[in-house]
């Protein structure tokens, strides 16, 4: 039985030491290089006495960043990926929440790191990776490791304005990667084209499946996702055959007729998630690549990664909704109604996840953890946690699970999970803003901000840019004389939403 994610790497390095594991357009590193680099970094951390602590990896997205992640795990610590494109304000919040044992930087990010309010140790990757490996020290760390120890923390949007750090352990990642590789059919011949940033759980799919199966992952430059023809050329150049992308990245290609001009010749497995794939766009893809397998994935960060899948096995017409299908092996989906009972077949219920794939919860936040990681209400015999996703779903007549909507103000925008409340909290902090409300225009896929106050739209936009990630910035900002209220005195979101379609 496997207890530690590093066993994937240790198995593959025996079989395929010289094969390229991770690469970008400039450089590629072999499994042996990943293995040795990670052990050197683990040795370094151990020699500094940094053990069982969060270690921030603040590096540009590149193959070496992955070595740093595994290095942190070798050290018996857990990694927290951060990138410069994240807003400063958010990085500071994360540093404050974590109080990390160390920060690993590359030369460029070191300069940025020095400008933060942080008293801990900052080390350069290049200095760490040259450390001579101490197998005894690493062996002692491994002996004491337990499969429920955390290996990473990934931050996700929080409605209170403070991001939540989801901590996941060896066990849940192994459970996830075993089932996922089976669904995607990952093997030695798999060549992934990675799209999602390393600071999201979505990238686990490529990073861990690669060391498990001896596959190869190419990191696709972010800028290519603006230019569809160049993107497909990249896929062809590196013979990429498997992608797990957010939906907007795929529709970026199909929406402009790209597939009529150039086809991704090697693609055979196309998995997508994060939001509902519009059937019109899916059909353009299927027509261009009739042999390829299309897989709809669904799952929250709190259940490690994806927990449901649907292999597109029949034609879909516009207007039909693609199901999220069925749970991965060793995972159960329970639907619960308002009374915590299982709704009648075909009726709406909250999607709840049961199984080993549940993460440990939110780091240093027992209160918010207890709100959503709760005792299974169907079990009154022994302690058993389920995760309440806040997503509403139902089963269709074929018995496939279908996502319907959210029960709160969380939206999916540009492939990211966004709490509208987090944006509102940040707007309300701006001087000269009296009241703020965000609504989501599903049709135009826009976040629309309404606020009351004397602050100018420009000021509001500029301040938010410093505080929020790019994908959380409102696409349209409107100033109101007064905020519409419901009879209960709450902001009338319905009224504001109605306004969307009449004013612009």
């Amino acid at each position, binding site marked *: 039985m496997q207890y530690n994610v590093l066993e994937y790497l240790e198995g593959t390095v025996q079989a395929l030491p010289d094969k390229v594991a991770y690469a970008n357009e400039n450089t590629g590193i072999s499994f042996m290089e990943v293995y040795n680099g990670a052990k050197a970094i683990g040795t370094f951390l151990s020699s500094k006495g940094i053990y069982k602590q969060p270690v921030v990896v603040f590096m540009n997205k590149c193959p070496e960043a992955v070595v740093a992640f595994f290095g942190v795990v070798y050290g018996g610590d857990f990694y927290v990926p951060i990138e410069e494109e994240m807003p400063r304000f958010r990085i500071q919040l994360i540093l404050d929440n974590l109080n990390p044992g160390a920060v690993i930087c590359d030369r460029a990010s070191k300069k940025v790191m020095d400008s933060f309010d942080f008293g801990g140790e900052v080390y350069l990757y290049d200095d760490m990776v040259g450390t001579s490996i101490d197998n005894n020290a690493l062996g002692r760390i491994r002996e004491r490791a337990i499969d429920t120890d955390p290996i990473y923390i990934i931050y996700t949007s929080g409605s209170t304005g403070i991001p939540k750090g989801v901590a996941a352990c060896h066990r849940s990642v192994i459970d996830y990667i075993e089932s996922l590789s089976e669904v995607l059919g990952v093997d030695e011949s798999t060549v992934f084209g990675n799209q999602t940033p390393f600071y999201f759980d979505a990238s686990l799919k490529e990073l861990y499946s690669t060391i498990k199966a001896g596959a190869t992952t190419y990191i696709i430059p972010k*800028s290519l*996702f*603006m*230019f*569809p*023809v*160049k993107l497909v050329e990249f896929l062809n150049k590196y013979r990429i055959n498997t992608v797990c992308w957010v939906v*907007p*990245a795929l529709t*970026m290609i199909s*929406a*402009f*007729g*790209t597939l*009529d*001009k150039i086809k991704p010749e090697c693609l055979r497995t196309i998995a997508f998630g994060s939001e509902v794939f519009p059937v019109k766009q899916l059909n353009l893809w299927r027509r261009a690549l009739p042999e390829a397998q299309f897989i709809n994935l669904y799952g929250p960060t709190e259940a490690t990664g994806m927990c449901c899948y649907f292999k597109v096995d029949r034609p879909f017409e516009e207007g039909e909704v693609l199901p999220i299908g069925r749970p991965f092996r060793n995972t159960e989906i329970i639907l619960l109604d308002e009374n915590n009972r299982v709704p009648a077949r075909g009726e709406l219920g909250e999607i709840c996840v049961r199984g080993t794939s549940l993460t440990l919860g939110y780091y240093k936040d027992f209160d918010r953890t207890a709100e959503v990681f709760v005792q299974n209400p169907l079990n009154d015999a022994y302690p058993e946690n389920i995760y309440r996703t806040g997503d509403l779903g139902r089963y269709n007549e074929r018995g496939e699970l279908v996502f319907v909507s959210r029960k709160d103000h969380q939206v999916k925008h*540009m492939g990211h999970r966004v709490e509208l409340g987090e944006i509102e909290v940040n707007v309300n902090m701006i001087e000269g803003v009296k009241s703020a409300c965000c609504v989501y225009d599903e049709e135009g896929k826009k976040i629309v901000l309404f606020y009351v106050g004397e602050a100018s*739209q*420009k000021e509001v*936009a*500029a301040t938010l*840019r410093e505080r929020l990630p*790019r*994908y959380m910035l409102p*696409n*349209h900002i409107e100033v109101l004389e007064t905020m519409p209220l419901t009879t209960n005195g709450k902001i009338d979101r319905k009224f504001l939403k109605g306004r969307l379609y009449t004013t612009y």
Partner: protein
Amino acid sequence: MEILLEILSELHPDVDFESCDTLIDDNILDSFDIITLIAEISSEFDVNIPAEEIVPENFNSAKALYALIERLLDQ
């Protein structure tokens, strides 16, 4: 040109689009902006930008983008 500048400032109120010619090189525009721009241009100018024209050179400045629109309108 005015309409185009308006569309652009709606996306990024704090950027001077009349002078900036490094919209792509300096990461000012991202993939969401490009998609929004193409949709807005299509509805305001009644012109569809084909995939092969969605390249950095055409999006680096408002001027380049406007030249592209005019070129497509002439066709």
